[in-house]
């Protein structure tokens, strides 16, 4: 067996390991969905303040059902399962359940003002943790930005605090989601040509 053949074996191992870890699933649009959903709910709730609870409940539940449905469907359709994929899934499912409990509990006890605070902190946690697991610097930065806006929200009030939340939703959900969609599209194209 000559050296070239052995080197070829090493290249084959690297290529196959890389291929098995490649993620070609689409999650970017879920971020966009939540961002748009949040802004839509905030806009409608300010137009119809007496129906605020109903508007928030309906919008967030709809986004939740769509996201959960997509998550379950993606898991079923997945042809390879990795530890990293399972870890990310566990992080986001835990976040979803915790956020639902926080939203429901704080809403039911008339502490709605606390909900954005909890949301900003939890989104910081979930994005930062995902970024670390995936070694994805952009998502780590997004996580830090959520935490910074958490502090901003704590230190301000009224329209400024509201503006901080909306601004962060646009950056951390809509812009980041679109960025992810672009990356996913590039990854799919690369996959189709290799």
């Amino acid at each position, binding site marked *: *067996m000559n050296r070239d053949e052995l080197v070829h*074996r090493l290249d*084959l191992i690297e290529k*196959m*390991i890389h291929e*098995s870890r490649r993620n070609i699933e689409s999650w970017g649009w879920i971020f966009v969905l939540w961002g748009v959903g949040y802004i839509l709910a905030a806009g409608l709730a300010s137009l119809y303040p007496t129906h605020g609870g109903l508007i928030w409940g309906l919008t967030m539940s709809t986004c939740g059902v769509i996201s959960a449905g997509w998550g379950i469907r993606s898991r079923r359709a997945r042809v*390879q*399962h*990795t530890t990293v994929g*399972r870890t990310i899934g566990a992080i986001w499912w835990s976040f979803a359940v915790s956020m639902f409990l926080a939203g429901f509990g704080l809403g039911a006890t008339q502490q709605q003002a606390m909900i954005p605070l909890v949301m900003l902190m939890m989104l910081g946690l979930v994005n930062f943790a995902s970024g670390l697991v995936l070694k994805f610097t952009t998502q780590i930065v997004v996580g830090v930005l959520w935490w910074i806006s958490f502090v901003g929200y704590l230190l301000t009030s009224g329209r400024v605090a509201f503006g901080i939340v909306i601004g962060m939703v646009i950056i951390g959900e809509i812009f980041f989601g679109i960025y992810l969609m672009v990356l996913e599209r590039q990854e799919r194209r690369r996959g189709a040509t290799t």
Partner: protein
Amino acid sequence: MAPLPELNGLIHGKIRLAILSILIGAEEVQFTYLRDNIGTTDGNLSVHLTKLEDAGYIVSTKSFVKKKPMTTYQITDQGRREFTKYISALKQILGE
């Protein structure tokens, strides 16, 4: 000078090496994923999978999804150990 190590003949075959490399990277994969990524026929892949399974390097699980049979494969601890040994031997031979 120490003698160069032997390469495990069962792992060294291109297709079997590709199978184990994929299974090292992913926890569990479907037959179709292996076939599409390795670029071989169903029959040929089945022969190599059986050899690896008989050696205890991988395990298969058969199930039904929407009434269609689905087979998934996982690497065993023994398979992982042998694969690691193979890489070490390969690197030693190449002097890396």
